[in-house]
């Protein structure tokens, strides 16, 4: 056995509460990671995964401190190293890919400058080679057009692009060990598949060790040799991915698995009941006792120890035999499909085109037209009342852009949006009728960015209620409480500030705010991707219930195809801002017709599946779509010929309501 590269020895970390008690966040963690090994860390948010990963770098968030134990990296005690030694290791031999890459890039520095900084600090290369190396790194993480990317500021990239920049930055120092905190949450499945391949490749070739924190059990199953399940700051289960994902021996792991949506199962996942104990809340018994379906009297009295069982797993439970009895697939009924027809249409988009290109002011003065290829083009579709349309596509394909245009937040280049079949919707939200504004609501991926940190929940919810319904006094309060109850939060949340709530709670407040306006359409941009699986399951159930009660239509953008499968009636597939395929979710998932959709669906990772994804012909994404012909032409694995480069592909029908845009003859579908 090789000596461990990273070793946690009985590590406990905690903070001192206001009443002077020492509250543990990590409890007696012992874990060793060998060179070249990849260990997955899973668990709900708040279970201490990120704290553990950061502790490996000798770093603790403000307020936290080591209570007992040690962390060593390459035989060095990380918590007793001096500043300059830490600086040499961090970002060099030991690198981190942070959870929130959008916020982890310095807003005032260009991407190129941030990457060069990493090279300057840790690379042995000659400074003259930095520019070439920078481009290389960006190409490695499959960023399109690296020359253009380095000149951009972080906010000029899409979420997935920012994430890949963070990955490139971590690889700059050629690390011996990599800590990945949700590295692929913002990525679509195809990009994720490539990135995971890249990382596994480097790990194999250079013996790089990885600690992989993720909610995405599919990805974990793919890259990890060992999985550690954490609950309330403790390791509760440790084993191989096969052991843990096929038939977990710990009740918590079984619940966690059931809350993950599956592409193979078009139903809403079930949320684990209750919530994990807050630091210091866990009593003397098993921390999971309050939520455990098979809790025994002994569980509340005695804390189970982590012990090895026959299969080679390590387990913290008094009665693992009983865990086998917990049924793992009690999914709810599938959603009914709303039929789209023009008389019930709420949105009708025709030939919508949107361009981010900035004509320079000089040209504008001369009145020259904007001739650039638009980011999004030729989007024609309808959304019926009460229908949920899933919008999928890789990172940077323009999903958020379309939502922004519908919400009137980004100008469109051409095309029209008809609202409620009759009203023509103004491009700019400021020019829309108040009633139109009320009926179209938007919920963002990151509640931190959309909720004002200085406003209480009451102030946040009161805004739309005052504005649209003129409520005040008792009526206002009653309605706010009603809304909070709808999203499963109570009246006692009214006085909270966003900083006093968890991510899932904040997202539910954002949803409550959207529903306060009693909208007809809610535009959801990756609303669950910042949440962990059990909270995600709860939010999905909530969205599903609200649409049943209120007949609200959704446009649901997500890169998680399983989530889209669980919620959407119809799906639209987007590539480079062009529609490729649209149809009922069941049809598209069962029988994808467009070459790109086929690639996309084959790249899905499920914990049980070992199949290798089909990939695009050309490896690197492009930054701007081709001027004419098919959007996929440069990377299509099934390209027909020259016609793909010159003619816009025609729409072909597979079955009624299911069509795709391609030059490929329809009958050759597999």
């Amino acid at each position, binding site marked *: 056995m090789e000596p461990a590269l990273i070793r946690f020895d009985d590590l406990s970390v905690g903070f001192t509460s206001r009443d002077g008690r020492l509250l543990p966040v990590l409890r007696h963690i012992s874990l060793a990671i060998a060179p070249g090994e990849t260990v997955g860390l899973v668990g709900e948010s708040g279970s201490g995964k990120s704290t553990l990963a*950061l502790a490996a*770098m000798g*770093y603790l*968030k*403000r307020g936290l401190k080591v209570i007992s134990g040690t962390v060593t990296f390459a035989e060095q005690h990380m918590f007793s190293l001096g*500043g*300059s030694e*830490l*600086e*040499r*290791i*961090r*970002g*060099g031999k030991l*690198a*981190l890919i*942070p959870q*929130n890459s959008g*916020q*982890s*890039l*310095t*807003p*005032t*520095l260009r991407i190129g400058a941030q990457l060069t*900084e*990493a090279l300057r*600090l*840790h690379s042995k290369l000659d400074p003259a080679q930095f520019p070439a190396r920078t481009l290389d790194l960006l190409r490695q993480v499959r960023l399109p057009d690296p020359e253009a990317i380095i000149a951009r*500021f972080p*906010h*000029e990239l899409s979420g997935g692009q920012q994430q890949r920049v*963070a990955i490139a*930055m971590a690889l700059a*120092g050629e690390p011996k060990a990599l800590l990945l905190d949700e590295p692929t949450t913002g990525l679509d499945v195809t990009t994720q598949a490539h990135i995971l391949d890249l990382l596994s490749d480097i790990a194999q070739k250079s013996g790089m060790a990885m600690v992989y924190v993720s909610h995405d059990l599919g990805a974990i199953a793919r890259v990890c040799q060992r999985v550690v399940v954490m609950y309330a700051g403790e390791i509760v289960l440790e084993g191989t991915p096969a052991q843990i994902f096929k038939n977990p021996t710990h009740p918590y792991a079984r619940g966690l698995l059931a809350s993950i949506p599956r592409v193979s199962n078009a139903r809403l996942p079930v949320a684990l009941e209750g919530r994990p104990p807050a630091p210091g809340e866990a009593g003397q018994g098993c921390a999971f006792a309050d939520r455990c379906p098979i809790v025994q009297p002994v569980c509340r009295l005695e804390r189970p120890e982590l012990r090895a069982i026959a299969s080679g797993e390590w387990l913290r439970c008094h009665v693992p035999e009983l865990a086998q009895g917990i049924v793992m697939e009690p999914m709810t009924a599938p959603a009914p499909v709303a039929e789209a027809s023009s008389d019930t249409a709420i949105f009708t988009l025709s030939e919508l085109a949107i361009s981010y290109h*900035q004509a320079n*002011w000089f040209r*504008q003065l001369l009145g020259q037209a904007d001739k650039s290829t638009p980011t999004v083009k030729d989007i024609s579709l309808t959304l019926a009342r009460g229908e949920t349309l899933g919008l999928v596509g890789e990172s940077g394909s323009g999903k958020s852009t379309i939502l922004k245009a519908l919400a009137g937040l*980004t*100008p469109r280049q051409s095309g029209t949006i008809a609202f409620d079949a009759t009203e023509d919707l103004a491009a700019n939200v400021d020019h829309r009728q108040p009633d139109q504004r009320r009926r179209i609501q938007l919920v963002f991926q990151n509640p931190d960015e959309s909720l004002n940190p200085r406003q209480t929940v009451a102030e946040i919810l009161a805004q739309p209620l005052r504005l649209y319904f003129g409520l005040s006094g008792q009526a206002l309060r009653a309605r706010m409480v009603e809304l909070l109850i709808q999203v499963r939060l109570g009246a006692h949340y009214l006085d909270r500030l966003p900083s006093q709530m968890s991510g899932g709670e904040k997202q539910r407040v954002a949803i409550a705010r959207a529903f306060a306006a009693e909208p007809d359409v809610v535009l959801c941009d990756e609303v669950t991707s910042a949440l962990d699986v059990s909270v995600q399951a709860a939010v999905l159930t909530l969205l599903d219930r609200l649409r049943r009660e209120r007949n609200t239509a959704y446009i649901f953008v997500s890169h998680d195809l399983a989530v889209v499968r669980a919620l959407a009636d119809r799906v639209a597939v987007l590539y480079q801002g062009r529609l490729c395929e649209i149809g009922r979710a069941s049809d598209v998932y069962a029988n994808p017709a467009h070459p790109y959709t086929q690639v996309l669906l084959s790249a899905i990772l499920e914990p049980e599946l070992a199949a290798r994804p089909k990939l695009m012909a050309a490896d690197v994404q492009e930054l701007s779509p081709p001027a004419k012909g098919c959007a996929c032409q440069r990377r299509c694995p099934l390209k027909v010929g020259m016609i793909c480069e010159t003619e816009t592909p025609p729409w072909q029908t597979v079955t009624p309501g299911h069509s795709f845009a391609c030059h490929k003859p329809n009958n050759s579908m597999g």
Partner: protein
Amino acid sequence: MVRLILRRLGLGLITVALVTGIIFVAIEMLPGDACVAYLERDAVGQRLENCREQLGLNRPAIQRYGLWVGAAIRGDLGVSASGGKDIATLVGDRFRNTLLLALCAIVAGVPLSLFLGVVTALNRDKSADLVVSSIAILAMTIPEFVTATVLIFVFSIWLEWVPGIVMTSAGAPVAAFFPEIVLPTAALTLVMAAHILRTVRSSVIEVMASDYVQMATLKGVPYWQIIFRHVLPNALLPAINVVALTIAWLLGGVVVIEKVFNYPGLGRLMIDAISDRDIPVVQAIALILATVYVAVNLGADVLTLLLNPRLRTLQMRGTR
């Protein structure tokens, strides 16, 4: 970008026009006029008529406003009602003095407060921070005249280091104001530094807690490089506007300080002119104040725009 700046400039000009217009109307609505005020009890009959004739007060209001604006653009601010002096020189001297005092306060105060703001933030909750922050809060809450009086008492009367009040006349050359200007500068610096310091401190603390600073730390960037490359460019952006407001406040002439130190600045002139109901002078000062205010804020906006890439993209998209 250029279009945006031009647009802001246009808006600024409109603001200035509106302000002078409003002041003009407000003064019109006050009972009496410059001549009534000037002549006091003699303001009857022929003398009043003559005076009004002389100052052009018996023409319609609109016409007077037009004439006044036209002249002001040419740099002619008219003659004061009391004493018939040329307003351009009268106000000009005072404005120069205010400018001088403001400049001294800015040169002393802005770097000092930026520096202290950063230092207190980086030493948050340590003794240096506690001491400086408490002094800042004290300086903010104590009325200016108290600060000024204490300064005079300590440095002029007790220690006898510098003169306590300004004896130099308004029109004297700049050099004549030293060292009399030291104490008013110190008083202003104290008050404004407190404001800037607190903004900078909280902004630096906020940025230090951000994800990108944590990332920079975990990338192995040395501490001082983090401060200069990652923290300050982001943390000082919000300070620009506060500094601008402070500068505008200084340039307007801080009446209390000018009164206490007997400093011949714009603020005092304004108060005197108002109590004398010397309307041409009041108007001229209002024009200058509005212009200064608009210009300083415009400068701050443009600077923020140039330095904040995020805003830059947003704004450009917004004005398309």
